């Protein structure tokens, strides 16, 4: 059945019936190509969603003060809410069950100088625990620690690109930089997966910032890290009671949309995951539909091919072809075409996906990929279904008496 001679006969038939070969090959290749691309792009989308969050912790709240928009308990509307150091302590004290760490955040932009080099950077004043919130990775030196905060040390942790810009290729550790008129010692260099903007930041102790700013105790924003084990439901409850606590303390109406805002990263993450999940289901359904359409397409072509060959098969039978020979030649021919083109479509699809990489990042698609097992499974499914679809008409054709087949002009 698989002798060289049989293959030669099959190759000749394939070569001399180019339209037929093209049609069935094209259907299969296209079906697999679209399937692989769709699944890959869906995965790429998922990657992007994951990436939004994986450079920051998800067990975090960011508390932003605002300006009130309604009067409450004798206070007028349009009042600027401010946080100070006592708020940090209060949150830590009242929610000790939930809280892992609390850090303030004071952002200032200013000129930073080292020797002859200078540039504008955002300097972010934080406490030592802020490293967890941003998932900051230290390349060398160290991050701020509690002693630095307590001692109001003039230490700075600079981003990778700050070092690159200001120090060229020299080592920044131990060097002194000028941040908006104050001199800081560089104790560490960090990197951050989020990208260039984050790596152009400088971290300093918030106490030092407050000292520079006339020994104030004001802070801009508060970052609260809660214990991951409280879970999504715990986070939502904590979010709610923290909101209530702060509104009570700052005299903000519970209905005021503008007085205070808590950004619940975990909630956002959950919603994004759900959105990505729905997209994955839609993408998967379309991909499955494509395979189904491919199967139907190849089945149609097989029925047509056998019908078209009825007379030829009659001639072959009159010349001594057994029904078995007829069926096997049709099946081998079609399986050969679908296998080659299926593999071609699969490899082409995977090549396209891997060549994409980060090129489609603007369209929220990062590193699209498909699981090799899934791609092979889909290809084999299409080939097997094509063979089954071909077998039924082939068997029928093989059973037709040659005299009937020959009459059929």
């Amino acid at each position, binding site marked *: 059945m698989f002798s060289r*001679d049989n293959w030669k006969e099959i190759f000749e038939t394939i070569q001399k019936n180019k339209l037929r070969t093209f049609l069935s090959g094209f259907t299969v290749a296209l079906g697999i190509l679209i399937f692989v691309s769709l699944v890959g792009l869906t995965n790429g989308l998922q990657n992007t969603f994951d990436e939004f969050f994986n450079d920051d912790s998800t067990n975090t709240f960011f508390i932003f003060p605002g300006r009130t928009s309604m009067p409450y308990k004798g206070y007028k509307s349009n009042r600027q809410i401010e946080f100070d150091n006592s708020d940090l302590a209060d949150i830590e004290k009242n929610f000790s069950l939930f809280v892992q760490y609390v850090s303030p955040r004071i952002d200032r932009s200013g000129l930073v100088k080292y020797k002859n080099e200078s540039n504008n950077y955002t300097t972010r004043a934080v406490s030592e625990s802020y490293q967890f919130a941003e998932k900051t990775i230290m390349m060398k030196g160290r991050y701020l620690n509690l002693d630095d905060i307590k001692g109001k040390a003039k230490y700075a942790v600079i981003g990778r690109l700050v070092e690159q810009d200001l120090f060229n290729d020299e080592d920044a550790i131990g060097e002194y930089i000028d941040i908006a008129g104050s001199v800081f010692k560089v104790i560490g260099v960090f990197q951050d997966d989020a990208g260039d903007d984050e790596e152009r930041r400088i971290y300093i102790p918030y106490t030092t910032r407050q000292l520079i700013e006339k020994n104030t105790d004001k802070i801009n924003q508060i970052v609260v890290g809660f214990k991951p084990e409280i879970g999504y439901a715990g986070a939502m409850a904590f979010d709610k009671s923290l909101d209530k606590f702060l509104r009570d303390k700052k005299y903000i109406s519970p209905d005021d949309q503008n007085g205070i805002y808590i950004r619940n990263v975990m909630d956002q993450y959950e919603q994004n995951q759900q959105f990505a999940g729905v997209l994955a289901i839609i993408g998967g359904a379309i991909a499955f539909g494509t395979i189904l359409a491919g199967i139907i397409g190849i089945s149609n072509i097989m029925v047509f091919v056998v019908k078209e060959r009825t007379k030829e098969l009659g001639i072959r039978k009159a*010349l*001594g072809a057994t029904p078995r020979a007829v069926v096997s030649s049709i099946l081998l021919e079609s399986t050969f075409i679908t296998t080659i083109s299926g593999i071609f479509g699969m490899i082409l699809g995977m090549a396209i996906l891997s060549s994409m990489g980060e090129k489609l990042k603007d369209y929220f698609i990062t590193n699209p990929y498909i699981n090799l097992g899934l791609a092979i499974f889909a290809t084999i499914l299409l080939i097997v279904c094509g063979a089954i679809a071909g077998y039924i008409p082939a068997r029928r054709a*093989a059973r037709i008496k040659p005299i009937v087949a020959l009459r059929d*002009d």
Partner: protein
Amino acid sequence: MIEIKDLHKSYKMGSNSLHVLKGINFTVKEGELVAIMGSSGSGKSTLLNILGMLDVADSGEYKLDGVPIKDLNETKAAKYRNKFLGFVFQSFNLINYKTALENVALPLYYQRIPRKERQEKALKYLEMVGLKEWSHHLPNELSGGQNQRVAVARAMASEPKVILADELTGALDSTTSYEVMELVQEINDQGNTILVVTHEDDIAHMCKRIVYLKDGVIIKDEKVKQVRASEYV
């Protein structure tokens, strides 16, 4: 070579059944060139189809080269056809995407003869029918007469016991018909047994024996003086 006893065949057409062959008895010896004559509806094509194992008789005996042909399934029929018979059809029935050489070699492929030997044999028979130079042409590049000669070469290629020709000149003009008949006579002269179904008197008289069929029975079976086709060409 061929022995037929009391062969019956009827076709069902809805509720009626059409009795086409009503007890045919005849024998063909090796080396004969027999014409089966009859008007359309006489049952001559049905008889040929049964002889060619393309169709099955309802009752009666059929022996081919001493082998009783009965209880045929498709696989068995295919093997017998391949071993015993060569066909020439009115409409040539060549495979249109294969060259003359490949068409002639096809029955040998089903005999599992190696490719090289197949090609050599096919070329030999193409040469015999005078188409060696045309071996790599497709059927649609050849004339009707040439196509029929390719078909004759194909029927010869498997070196069958009997060649069955169904109206082999039906699609050809008379000059071409005579050329093809001349070829048939030459092949017969070499000792091959040939049965020709025709309704044309002149073609029938180029054979050595004529069997007249009418309404499913043989009405006359006579030896005739063969008219050589070469006289007309």
